[in-house]
């Protein structure tokens, strides 16, 4: 059964049709990659999925429920997490604080308890901290725990954003160009981590990516977009041979 389904999504900005009748399904446990030249509508699609943009037409289903009308701040409690192409971290906070914010949706204590920092609150904080430490170990961030984000190199920041998304204990993870700005070595590491997230944490991944060798290495299925329309979709080997995709990338 498909975990995530997008049905006939269309969205226009003024006269520009950014997405035109796009539909696809993502199965539980797979790495699903969206590719396409610049301006193909990949990021728009992501912003529609994560509810920043309201589509003109179409519906989005997650675990069989229609989430097309859900407010953006409710998305993470449904179990959908995302990272951003240009990083959206809390710059003046430490890595640990950023990750702890990922646990925000799970805090159930009430206001007065928090004001007086009661044992119940302390117990909750400890549980959240343990979860965060698991993720820190998973992504090798031990070294940076108490460093401010604005003092970190770009590659580490990308990693922190991934970690923060994982801290929300998602069922599905949306990655917007996870390898952009990374060195070859960092991209290699990322490949292993994505495989680990898939196999160990059992999280489904939808990702936008440009680096084709990276895409072919980690993806189970690929969707190619061009000018807001679906060009092709299928296994990496099929996409590689697809005439339309070749034309879009290389020119006619």
């Amino acid at each position, binding site marked *: 059964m498909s975990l995530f389904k997008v049905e006939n999504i269309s969205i226009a900005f003024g006269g520009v049709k950014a997405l035109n009748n796009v539909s696809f399904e993502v199965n539980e446990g797979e790495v699903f990659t969206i590719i396409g030249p610049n301006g193909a509508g990949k990021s728009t699609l992501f912003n529609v999925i994560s509810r920043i943009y309201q589509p003109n037409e179409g519906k989005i289903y997650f675990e069989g429920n229609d989430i097309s009308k859900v407010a953006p*701040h409710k*998305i993470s409690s449904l179990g959908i997490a995302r990272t951003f192409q240009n990083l*959206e971290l809390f710059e003046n906070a430490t890595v640990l604080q950023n990750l702890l914010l990922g646990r*925000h949706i799970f*805090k159930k204590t009430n*206001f007065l308890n*928090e004001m007086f920092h009661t044992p119940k609150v302390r117990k909750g904080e400890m549980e959240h901290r343990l979860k965060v430490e698991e993720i820190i170990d998973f992504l090798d961030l031990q070294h940076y725990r108490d460093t401010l984000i604005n003092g970190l190199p770009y590659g580490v920041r990308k990693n922190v954003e991934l970690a923060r998304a994982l801290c929300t204990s998602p069922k599905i993870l949306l990655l917007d160009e996870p390898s952009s700005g990374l060195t070859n070595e960092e991209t290699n590491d990322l490949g292993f981590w994505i495989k680990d997230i898939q196999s160990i944490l059992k999280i489904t991944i939808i990702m936008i990516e440009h680096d084709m060798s990276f895409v072919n290495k980690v993806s189970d299925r690929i969707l190619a977009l061009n000018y807001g329309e679906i060009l092709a979709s299928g296994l990496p080997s099929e996409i590689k041979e697809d005439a339309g995709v070749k034309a879009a990338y290389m020119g006619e």
Partner: protein
Amino acid sequence: MQLIQLIIDGVASGCIYGLVALGFVLIYKATETINFAQGDILMLGAFVAFSLIGVLGLNYILGFVLTVMIIAVFGFFLDAVVVRQIIGQPAFATVMLTIGLGFIFRGFASIYWGTDIFSFSTPFSGKITEVGGLIISYVNISIIVGTTLLMGILFAFFSFTKIGVAMRASSENQLAAYYMGIPVKFIFSLIWSISAGVAAIAGVLLAPITLVDTSISLIGLKAFAAAVLGGFGSIPGAIVGGIIIGIVEQLCGTYENYLFEGIREISAYLVLILTLIIYPRGLFSDKAEVKKV
């Protein structure tokens, strides 16, 4: 001795500036807009307290709490209904809007309550205490103690509570806050609500000194100077900025003869200009330090 006396008076009026400045800072940090109606909200607070305590004859504490609640709810809807409509417009639009709102509030107050000067009795009015030769009025004590308590509560609120942390997160990065499950728009309205509530507290505490009329909204101007002086960044900065201006104003007023006539009225802005020449970012700029909301 007289100097200490003056400083105490200055700290008290400075606390009021600081509280209003705090409202400026909270809203600016979160939404990057400046609410120029902050002083007018203080005025509304004083008037509502006058209606509840002076006219309806409610108990002071009850009247105080009710006033703060009413103004806080008012602040919430001010953002949710009016200010939110112009999100995405140039910053200038918000400036014009809030200045306009200030005029409306003042106009409403003079229509509804009239242009007379009102007062209502408080448990602090007219009482003084003597400590080692210093004469301290209960009103001043109430202002200083009230401000200190409020600062403590706000500190705990922003440091320990889920919603306080959500506010800091929303101030820092709206998009990321959304994906941490924080309802950012609601949080922004809450920040307006807190700012309005704090202004109302300042208004009620101030009422025994300045009495209640529409001109007290002008405190907003000096409070703005205090906020800039404090670096427009941190809560402590706003309060310290307010206190500095309060003390300088008090000293200038008393030693006017040695300086020049009327210096009291412009002292707040003189301090501001002099400080900005030396520290262009204000005293407590938040650059390169952890954001304190």
